[in-house]
């Protein structure tokens, strides 16, 4: 039982990281990115290509984290500049549709480039199936690394938002764009940085799960819904909420797929989401506006 919960928490941290990226984008520009899972897929393929080109077969992919971050940031900035920037501040429908269109474009664009076959990076057996046992509980190495990496990135975001200039600018813009702009915040740059960072988190999550999952163009669909549920669970625009939401989903998934079947886990994740929304319509930690 504890073992299962631990497993859930470990993978939940990765879900949290994706959800944190989503929350970041939503917090600053009030856009829910339905293509977040596809950005993760892009991260997986970037890792795959870089691994094939520069890394000796069998070694761990983790030090690719720096080039993946840089590439994903640039990619995110490009995506934002070309498309998303045009719907910032417009109606909900337009960004929902735009990001959904983007997700199809990315998914099937990558299918055209890489084919629809399942691929994986050739990490060594010892990394893939290695584990550490502490007090009778088995920690799979890949999941453990993913957990700590995700944790470090989330702490980094918290630090960034609370104690740096760009972080303060981001929070100011998210609260009131007009006032922030009039006080000298360059909203354009804030938006680009926020979207770029959101993309980086998706990309890093992609890198972290490459030793665990197969790489294929529609892999993002799975993560998209999970990340969105995690974000909504925690309450939109709330980094801590997104983290806890991701963990909850990880645990629910682990419990239901261990004690029932894998197919059931999806039912339970979504049921938990709907149930929480019934009692807390703005998520667990959301500060919803009161409706008269």
């Amino acid at each position, binding site marked *: 039982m504890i073992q299962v919960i631990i497993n859930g928490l470990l993978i939940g941290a990765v879900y949290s990281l994706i959800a944190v990226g989503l929350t970041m984008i939503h917090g600053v520009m009030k856009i*829910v990115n339905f293509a977040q899972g596809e950005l993760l897929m892009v991260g997986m393929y970037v890792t795959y290509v870089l691994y094939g080109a520069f890394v000796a077969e069998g070694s761990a992919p983790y030090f690719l984290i720096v080039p993946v971050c840089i590439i994903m940031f640039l990619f995110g900035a490009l995506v934002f500049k070309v*498309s998303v920037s*045009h*719907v910032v501040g*417009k*109606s*909900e*429908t*337009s960004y*929902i*549709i*735009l990001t*959904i*269109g*983007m*997700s*199809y*474009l*990315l*998914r*099937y*664009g*990558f*299918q*055209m*480039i*890489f*084919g*629809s076959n399942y691929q994986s990076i050739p990490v060594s057996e010892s990394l893939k199936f290695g584990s550490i046992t502490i007090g009778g509980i088995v920690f799979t190495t890949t999941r453990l690394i993913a957990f700590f990496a995700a944790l470090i990135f989330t702490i980094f975001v918290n630090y960034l938002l609370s104690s740096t200039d760009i972080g303060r600018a981001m929070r100011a813009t998210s609260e009131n764009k007009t006032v922030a702009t009039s006080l000298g915040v360059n909203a354009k740059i804030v938006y680009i940085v926020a979207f770029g960072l959101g993309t980086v988190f998706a990309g890093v999550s992609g890198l972290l799960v490459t030793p665990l999952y197969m790489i294929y*163009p529609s892999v993002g*669909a799975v993560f998209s*819904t999970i990340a*969105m*549920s995690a974000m*909504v669970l925690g309450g*939109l625009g709330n980094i801590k909420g997104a983290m806890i939401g991701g963990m909850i989903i990880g645990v629910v998934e682990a419990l239901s797929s261990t004690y029932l*079947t894998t*197919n*059931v886990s*999806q*039912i339970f994740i*979504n*049921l938990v*989401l*709907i149930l929480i*929304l*019934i009692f807390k*319509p*703005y998520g667990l930690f959301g500060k919803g506006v009161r*409706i*008269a």
Partner: protein
Amino acid sequence: MSRTDRKNSLHIKSVFHVLRQNPIAVIIVLVFALFPAVCGNIYFINVVIEVFFFAALGIAWNVLGGLAKQISWSSACFFTIGAYAGIMMYLSAGVSPWISMFIGIAAACLFALVIGAPCFRLRGVFFSIATISCTTILRQCLIVFKNITGGSVGLNFGIRKNYSLWMLTFRSKTDFYYLSLIWMLACVAIFVAVKHARLGYYLRAVREDEDAAASLGIIPSKLKTKAFLISAAMMSVTGTLYVFRLGYVDPNALCAHDISVKIGLIAILGGMGTTWGPVLGAFIIIPLLELCNYYLQDFAGGGAGYALYGLLIVLIVLLRPSGLITLADVIREKMAKRKAAGSAKGV
């Protein structure tokens, strides 16, 4: 004349009114009525049948999505419920689709009530995300309860021999073509009736400002639920008809997020809340996907159709967010201007 009679005649009048208002639409419908007689290619006829079904679904989506601006991604649920109702009733007792259709409607409405209660408490994008969850729950349930629903393999009609309208088994494809065309036009009529009924005006009030509407004594969640029920019933009937053409159900293909998205996009790209928008949207999106999948299936991993679809969505949102049907208004305006300029010259 009793009150209901007068109401009905009003609806019929408004339908005729719309027909008179849209001579181009009437001409297009006539063209499509004659299409199978001219086109001998069975493949193209099949594509157009698909278009009609998805146009019907798009119109049904538009009742809630267009009039009340509730972006729902649970359309595939009701479509699937209708399809399963049709095929399960047929396989277990040989029931005609014209009867199982109503059982499908009842089941779809029940499902809509169950998911509407929690979902309509949410607003905006929260509502959208909650409806996505509903599709996933239904699909996984269909897969998990194997002994009733056939699991992930789905169900199959097998060979049907007796050709009859009652059982919806036809010798030629053109029969189904006309059936789907008639159903699509019926959906247009239902949409127009709802739009011009009291419910339609209320829904549009909710769309413009939910709080203001509520303060004037409208109960938004009740109205949205009503629209949701109408939309669910229409989708369920479409599902029943559709499955009798398809011959099988596959939960992963039918109750998919992709299908919900396709239905919503058809309505949004065509023109949200407009009568003919979803029809136009279906005529652009479905042939694009079908033809690309048919002709480009060996090209570059077979993703070209959907990649183009994605590109098209992005472009339309950026260039014409109000929907393609509004292009017609632009053209109409230009023609009116030219006419005015011409008559001015004449004088």
